């Protein structure tokens, strides 16, 4: 089967995931809504995942895909716990504005 990398090239994927990652960073810095920041983190994770898959194909090695699999598992766990924290924060502060969390400073 014709492989996509022969036509698209690994560098295009690198640029794509770099940009995606930067968009994620931008989101984290730009917004103060905790849920949207969460989504931005997911975008960053996905950018990395995408690059892992691309290199997995490039090296023709399954390890990269296995890592992606694990990272998805971790992401799922993270989201579950993170959202639970957010719910707890929301209960206490009646909002999920990230600036409210300044109080957590020691």
């Amino acid at each position, binding site marked *: 089967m014709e492989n996509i990398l022969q036509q*698209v090239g690994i560098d295009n994927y690198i640029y794509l995931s770099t940009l995606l990652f930067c968009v994620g960073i931008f989101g984290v810095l730009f917004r103060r809504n905790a*849920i949207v920041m969460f989504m931005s983190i997911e975008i960053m994770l996905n950018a990395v995942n995408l690059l892992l898959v691309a290199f997995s194909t490039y090296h023709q090695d*399954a390890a990269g895909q*296995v890592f992606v699999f694990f990272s998805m598992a971790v992401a799922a766990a993270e989201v579950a716990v993170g959202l639970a924290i957010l719910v707890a924060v929301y209960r206490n502060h009646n909002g999920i504005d990230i600036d409210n969390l300044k109080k957590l400073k020691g």
Partner: protein
Amino acid sequence: MLTLFYILSAITLGTAFLTILSKNPIHSAIYLVLCFFSIAGHYLMFNAQFLFIVHIIVYSGAIMILMLFTIMLMNLNKADEKNKPILSRIAAVVAFCLVALVLLATFIKSQPVINEYKVSGQDFQSIKVLGQVLLNNYMVPFEFASVLLLVSMIGAVLLSKKEHINN
């Protein structure tokens, strides 16, 4: 194929931006789903069938549903978020540009290192092969991942439970 890549990439980046820029969290979530689907499209283009399916199930299915559910639970579906101070927003834009510049420049500079891609024709990413790799070589991490999920589940339950301070 290249065209397809560009279209998908455009969707990915566009929806990602929209996710961030939408005022309403519900809209953000919807755009994010779209973004994830486009990424799944990339996986498909790589012929990574297993990941394609897992990705759709985990992200578009589980995670996004969880998020939407939370948003609705908290009744956040309105654009009442106060904007950050203008200074932080400028800082965010600057940081974004800077990171993008640095990362892209880094990769461009290291481009000569990348060899030309060669196909060996070996099957490495069919579900069957992956399953074997996962359950042979990565047996222990796999089990740990399950433990992790279990723990996170317990953690999530504990955290979101209403506290009874007096008890």
